């Protein structure tokens, strides 16, 4: 009996010998690409609208036809789970070669050493077609860690009929002032009947606050990488306070929508319950597809206070540092970024392409219909915002900012408390 026990113990310990504690990463055995064997690269796409999925797949198959040696395999990912998924994929050595995500989240992975530098691999045409401002959002430690593809701006969709009924003047200029916007919301809501001037899906408010906050000069952060400080002052508090005012003082913004997503608010807008709704530009797709006959909708000019600036937080394509063919993967990204290709994807998602040439293609193809002119025009106001360089931003967003903004919008805490929570919270997560 004794020796058998010893044997068993030995068997177990042999089996365990392979398992070290270290969390380092194996992977990366393939060596450089471009050899004789054709390589297959996995491209994890987050496209979710059917039109975009199709456009993306078309690009992939066109590429595969032209490049028999570097085959790209389309893999479907999802925006909801991409953060956890990338952490586990990188850690498990199973990350896709080409990764779609957004710039604000990529610096974390760059810091962990998981992303390849693309600066050497992208063509000059692609580099030149995108503004320096946008390139800055994907530069970390002097390395280009991603190619910016599509940008989202926040726009106001309006029900023309309800605006006119309430005697609201339809703005003609390039921008629309916040004061006029607020007045319009109040004017259109004065009817009781469970109808509101505005529905605003702020269930996940942080991105909106960071981006539209720039209208009021709210830049929140200063510095880069691990050395970033936060300052929540008057500029930062203006946007939350304005929204708060519309809910609790003006009664023009439906409080239920504050806990919903933008998509959840759309049905209410379609039914005429809200005269206006603030949405990511991509929701124009829902409108163009499922707006009922009688609904005359329009995209209002960009909102403006001190400026009309919004944060550029582009969707991105990156290459895993562990990919067996970084060069091939980067070449595919370059191909994806070609004006015609990017335009196809952008039109599928109703987002603004990062490349100006591509925007021209869209304007030409759509003739600016269905709000495209206003959406593309809003792209001119997109600039780099400091939060993108803050390494702990994703964690601060989830754990601190989102709950704090939600509590403030839910009228649970005061603006001062909001400022304190945002500031103290930053110090605790960025430790």
């Amino acid at each position, binding site marked *: 009996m004794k020796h058998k026990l010893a044997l068993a113990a030995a068997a177990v310990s042999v089996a365990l010998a392979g398992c*070290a504690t270290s969390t380092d990463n194996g992977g990366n055995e393939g060596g450089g690409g471009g050899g004789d064997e054709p390589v297959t690269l996995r491209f994890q796409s987050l496209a979710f609208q059917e039109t975009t999925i199709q456009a993306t797949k078309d690009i992939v198959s066109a590429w595969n036809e032209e490049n028999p040696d570097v085959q790209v395999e389309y893999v*479907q990912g999802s925006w*909801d*789970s991409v953060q956890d998924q990338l952490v586990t994929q990188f850690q498990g050595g*199973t990350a896709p070669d080409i990764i779609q995500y957004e710039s604000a989240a990529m610096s974390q992975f760059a810091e962990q050493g998981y992303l390849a530098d693309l600066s050497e691999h992208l063509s000059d045409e692609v580099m030149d077609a995108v503004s320096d401002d946008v390139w800055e959002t994907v530069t970390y430690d002097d390395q280009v860690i991603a190619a910016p593809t599509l940008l989202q701006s926040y726009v106001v969709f309006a029900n023309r009929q309800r605006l006119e009924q309430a005697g609201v003047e339809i703005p003609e200029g390039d921008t629309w002032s916040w004061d006029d916007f607020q007045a319009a919301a109040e004017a259109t809501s004065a009817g009781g009947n469970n109808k509101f001037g505005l529905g605003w899906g702020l269930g996940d408010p942080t991105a909106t606050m960071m981006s539209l906050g720039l209208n009021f000069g709210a830049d929140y952060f200063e510095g880069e990488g691990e050395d970033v400080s936060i300052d929540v002052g008057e500029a930062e508090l203006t946007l939350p306070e304005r929204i708060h005012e519309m809910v609790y003082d003006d009664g023009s913004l439906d409080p239920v929508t504050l806990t919903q997503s933008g*998509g959840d608010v759309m049905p209410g807008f*379609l*039914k005429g319950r809200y005269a206006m709704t603030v949405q990511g530009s991509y929701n124009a797709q829902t409108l163009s597809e499922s707006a009922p006959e009688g609904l005359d909708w329009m995209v209002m000019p960009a909102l403006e206070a001190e400026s009309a600036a919004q944060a550029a937080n582009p969707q991105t394509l990156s290459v895993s540092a562990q990919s067996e063919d970084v060069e091939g993967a980067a070449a595919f990204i370059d191909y994806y970024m070609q004006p015609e290709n990017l335009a196809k994807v952008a039109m599928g998602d109703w987002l603004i392409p990062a490349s100006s040439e591509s925007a021209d293609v869209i304007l030409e193809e759509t003739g600016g219909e269905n709000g495209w002119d206003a959406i593309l025009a809003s792209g001119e106001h997109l600039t780099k915002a400091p939060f993108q360089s803050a390494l702990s931003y994703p964690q601060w967003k989830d754990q601190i900012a989102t709950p704090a903004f939600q509590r403030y919008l839910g009228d649970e805490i005061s603006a001062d408390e909001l400022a304190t929570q945002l500031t103290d919270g930053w110090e605790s997560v960025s430790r």
Partner: protein
Amino acid sequence: MSIGRTTPLARTGQYLLLAAYVVFLGFPLLWLLSTALTSTRDISLGATSLIPTSPTFENFGDAVRRANLVEAGRNSLVVALAATGITVLLSLPAAYGLARFRTFLRPVTLGWVLISQVFPTILVIIPLFLILKQFRLVDSLPGLTIVHVVFMLPFSLWMMIGFVANIPVDLEEAGAMDGAGRLRILVSIVFPLLRPGVVATALFAFISSWNEFLFALVLIQSPEKVTLPLTLSRFVGAEGQVQLGALAAASLLATIPSLVFFALIQRRLTSGLLSGAVKG
């Protein structure tokens, strides 16, 4: 408590209470069904009702097309069946050994059953992930199967030990006296008597594996390897798309196999086991 003397008033109260339970337990299920049968348009207009006015099956088509149900269903089935088979195969002899032999492993195993309940999965899952990575079993269905087996084993063992202990040793001894070998005794006397136990253990294993979420969430990343709970959880969020009908349809489809499995043995389970369980 069931003896006479129940006044009509008390009876009525009991029935009212029972009705309340039936509504609490059953209404959500019905609602799931009605939502699955209501068109996206009607749902967005807030026109869902318990009995759909114009039932439609379009959601089911949508669900299958959009939520990757077929592939995920196949993966779930493969993992659940494999995990069930392995769990039963491993726990049957082990439970016999633990029930019949005097070994220090008996208290150890029972202790482990309790410990494994108390420790949060999060504590296990990080190192498990790193270990599986060494064996190249991350993002693989065999890896997930192994994990399911390992985490169902303690409880299966516990269940099975009870069944083995319920078989009188005298039967085996009688067999031995008739000159039957150990193996023959096992195969022809013990295993047939253990059939209800095997069924119960298999049921438990299948449903546990079919429903399991956290391990799959951490271990599986490729879309072609996801299991049903995983694909459903991703379908929920699908970026602000209001697709409640398809979501409900997908959920229903995903529940059917374990419900069927469950219904098949439920009768035997409750009649056979419950009574057997209670008699001391």
